[in-house]
């Protein structure tokens, strides 16, 4: 089974500074990877996904992530944090082909400091 690891359950960033959320995965085959965002009291929304096309993936709201096979990483970045980026972010890997089951990381709660 595939899995993901997200360290730093809580991340504080100052408004206007870069955001970096780290994700490492384990996979026995070429993975499909996703980042989802969850705003308070809402469901999850897809930020971006990697499915073996370009290794640098651009998503919504100015976020992007780079797939690095040698490092088994899929870190999420944004050049300049905005107050509206305060949310929880989940790194997700497709766990099993054939039924689209996902494995979620434990999440990064991002706080943006004015």
């Amino acid at each position, binding site marked *: 089974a595939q899995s993901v690891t997200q360290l730093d359950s809580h991340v504080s960033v100052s408004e206007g500074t870069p955001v970096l959320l780290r994700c490492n995965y384990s996979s026995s085959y070429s993975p499909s990877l996703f980042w989802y965002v969850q705003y308070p009291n809402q*469901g*999850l929304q897809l930020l971006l996904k990697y*499915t073996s096309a370009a290794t640098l993936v651009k998503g919504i709201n100015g976020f992007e992530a780079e797939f690095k096979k040698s490092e088994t990483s899929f870190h999420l970045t944004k050049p300049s944090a905005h107050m509206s980026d305060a949310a929880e972010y989940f790194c997700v890997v497709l766990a099993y082909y054939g*039924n*689209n089951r996902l494995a*979620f990381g*434990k999440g990064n709660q991002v706080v943006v400091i004015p």
Partner: protein
Amino acid sequence: DAGITQSPRHKVTETGTPVTLRCHQTENHRYMYWYRQDPGHGLRLIHYSYGVKDTDKGEVSDGYSVSRSKTEDFLLTLESATSSQTSVYFCAISENSGGSTDTQYFGPGTRLTVL
């Protein structure tokens, strides 16, 4: 936004009572999923369905059952609710047959409290 609704959105119940949560989609997607979200655990899969009357267990299925009699509806039942089932429950859907490009779309969630 994907057409997914969940009902009820909030529910408080007592230990030992049965509870049914409903997920309804208007997308005609084949796959439907039930997750629970608990602090420090991310989302964990309870059950999923790959078609009408076709369901399978996820990683935390004990104490839960599901049914899917129509493409658009996926029901999650707690036969006898326990306090450990207090959680936020999310339904998700995906269109395809498990291909690597599939994306899951999530509903707004149901907050369940078992006293």
